[in-house]
């Protein structure tokens, strides 16, 4: 990322990249590979967005967005209708169960790696130089865009 890119634009770009990577992981990964990816994602977010707030909430929002995309474009509706018809299993509950499991997994794995990375970074710099979000309550505007 170009050093001269405005901070907020850089943040948006990073979130878009994270969203796309998360989306791709849901398409191609499963099992421990998924969990490993979520951990890398958390660490990456901690490294590239150390000062941003509500990072994990944004990851959850990305998960919801991805679930909606899967619901709209990927998951087979005929199958869900069949489950409903054959066994009175609600399609909504089936989807909800899958989405909740994935959201919690992503949230907890990403969150663990995210906080761990931040802690390591803080430890490495010493507590005086910590840039934890607790200390930076309000991000300092860097450009005119944010004024």
């Amino acid at each position, binding site marked *: 990322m170009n050093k001269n890119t405005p901070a907020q634009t850089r943040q948006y770009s990073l979130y878009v990249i994270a969203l796309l990577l998360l989306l791709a992981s*849901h*398409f*191609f*990964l*499963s*099992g421990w590979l*998924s*969990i490993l990816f979520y951990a890398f994602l958390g660490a990456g977010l901690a490294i590239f967005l150390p000062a941003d707030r509500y990072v994990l909430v944004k990851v959850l929002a990305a998960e919801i967005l*991805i679930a909606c995309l*899967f619901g709209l474009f*990927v*998951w*087979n509706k*005929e*199958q869900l*209708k*069949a*489950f409903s*018809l*054959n*066994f009175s*299993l609600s399609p909504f509950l*089936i*989807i909800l*169960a*899958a989405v909740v*499991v*994935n959201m*919690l*997994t992503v949230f*907890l*794995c990403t*969150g*663990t790696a*995210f*906080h*761990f990375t*931040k*802690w390591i970074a*803080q430890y490495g710099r010493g507590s005086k130089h*910590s840039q*934890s979000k*607790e200390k930076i309550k309000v991000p300092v505007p860097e450009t005119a865009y944010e004024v």
Partner: protein
Amino acid sequence: MKRILFTAIFFVLAGAWIYFTSMHYNGLNSLQNLANYNAGLLSKKPLQLQNPPTISTPFAGAEVNIDSLGIPHIFGKDMNAVAYAIGYMHARDRYFQMELMAYSMMGRQAEILGEAGIRSDRHWRPFEMEARAMALFDSLKLANTALYNYLNAYEKGINAYIAAEKATERDPLYTVWHYSPGTWKAWYVFLIQWYMSSDLTYYDDYVNRQEVLDKVPDTVRKALYPAQTVEYPYIVPTATGAKRTPLPANGVVSLFQPSQRNNYQSAPVNRSLGSNNWVVGTSRTRSKEVLLSNDLHLMLVSPNIFYEMQLVCKEVNVYGYSIPGVPVIVTGHNGKIAWGITNGEWDVTEQYLLRIDSANKNNYWLDGKWQPMTTKDFVINVKDQAPVKTTARYTVFGQYKEKEGIGYGLKWHPLQSGGAVQAFWKLLNASGWNDFRDALRLYDYPAQNFVYGDLEGNIGVICAGKMPLKPAGYAGGLMDGKVSPGKDYIPFDSLPQAFNPAKDYLFSANQEPGPDQYYFSSRWFSDLYRPRRIDELLSTGSQLTWEDMRAMQLDVLDISVTDLKNLLTKYGKEKSYGANWDLLMKWDGKIVPGTKESTLFRSFRQATRAVAKEIAVQLGVKAQPSFDQTIHFLLHTDTLNYNGGRLEGRHYFERVIKAADSIYTGTRQYQQSPAQAYSFKIPQLTFLPGFEKTINGIGGNDNTINVNYGAHPVIRTVVELKAGAVRSWMVNVTGQTGRINDKRYFQQLQAWKENRLHETQFVADPSKLSSIQQKISFSHE
């Protein structure tokens, strides 16, 4: 500090979450894997119905036309081409079920189901069916080369489908059980035959029977546990075939002293497993045709075990139900004859009481000397777990089993041969009674009562199977393990059979084959009412049509209600038992859900069973008299005296009435919603929680023709054989597909409930088929 705390909390929560959601509970896939968007349950899709490109096969071509019910009409150039196409279709619609049955019999169920399969594997692995099936299949190479090639073609068809199947279209059960389909072997066909035999003829109640024989005096036994029934419609109207065994009587043993306690834990016997079939001759039908009806009662799971199909090539044109894994028709018809089956319930499991050497527990006494048992170790592979070891000991009879201090050699005759597949293969193109008999000469297990009808107007029945000869005096208990077992069977020509009887109808409902032929079963043929009801309807019919057959299959009239009325009259002369019982006196006996009478009667049946248990306790035995025999006893016996005891009919009848009133009063939900009293559930094949279907509104019990109790009529067929033409109607309780994510999974359920049988498309020319939704073509590669 806050950061460390946050990290620690996240770490603990994530660890716990991943640990619990990655666990495989009871062999099921983990929540993580099931919920995975890429490979979980949501990533699957139902099978698409578009016509696939022509598939190359090593055999001459075939075409499969699949109709709107998912029934394949297979037109092949020869038998092998047909077999290949059957394999392809069986694999497409039922592969998980096929594999599960085969693996269960090999004692490898735990490889699919995990821990849940260990118990079954410990039981079946020592039977060494895998090696036996391979050997049987090899022997076919010379004995019946055509069938050998046919089964090989079938294997190739199955494996071709499995190899080509897209992962997203694979049966979701593989995802649920995190298991991948294996390769099918032609010899698995024998495993499926043994699976059916295990379901229908594997019994473990001989010790309890022995206890009755040892402890209960003959007078009481004849009243409550009769070996033979009187005034009873038999399968074969007049005495034919083997009555008694020619073997000496020294094979019968005694085990229990009068005061000895029986701690043996028998496996329960499902009394409702059975079936109905009947065939009506031309003099009793309106249009002078032969009508044949069959409904098979099995424990109901989804998908149902039967699979409907038509097979056409130059050698055969046959229609009916197959069992996935076995490429033949087990009940159905060809262009000339029709047949239907019911379970024989024959006594082909034998437990030989052994004398074990107290100095060396590995020795048993045989033919005047101690013989050593052989020992074998088996490793049971368990999915998600470490393998489990089991050891089996073998005697000349078979496996040595020991439970609660009783040791016996187990001989399960169905394991000795695999003739049923050959018999059904021959039946495919049988064209008359002689061909039918020739085919059934090969038939072995599970023993079945085959009814027969043909285009010439002939009807017949053969109780077919390989019945081992038993010692004279054998009445259903253990056998003597001190002498070598016999090796002979009742010859086919001596089996009960009838052809064109004077009454012009024949039927079977798992009853005794003929007068004095209780020898065939130690089950003692306790079901009295269902055969009587069928006989009642057929004997009074003179202008019967196929619609009458259909209506009969739905019959829920329980004629034991007449006996209840007789009991109320007999014992209620001096006193009234209350308004509820007065209501039953006016009732027609139809077990229709939602009526007070049916709900009351249900309580009566439950109470009778409870009182039967009390009687057994009083007699000091574990086996309780059946419902039917208890009613028979109450109706025909006032007092029974035996050593130190007395059974009074009135006392027990009043106990029944009191218990029934109490059960009825206690079941409030049935009073508020009487329809629930006869509701039941159809579990999924692997008993997946949440994947079960509740069924209401059918009615019936295990005494009615429309059996709905521990088992249900899982398929029904009616065949009409009229000069030059065969028409048939069939229905299956579930659907053709075994895929839980297919909307056609329960496609025929509603029709089954109402017995709206579909008319089959039994054609010789594929262009005459209608409602074809998909075509699959196979061409020679």
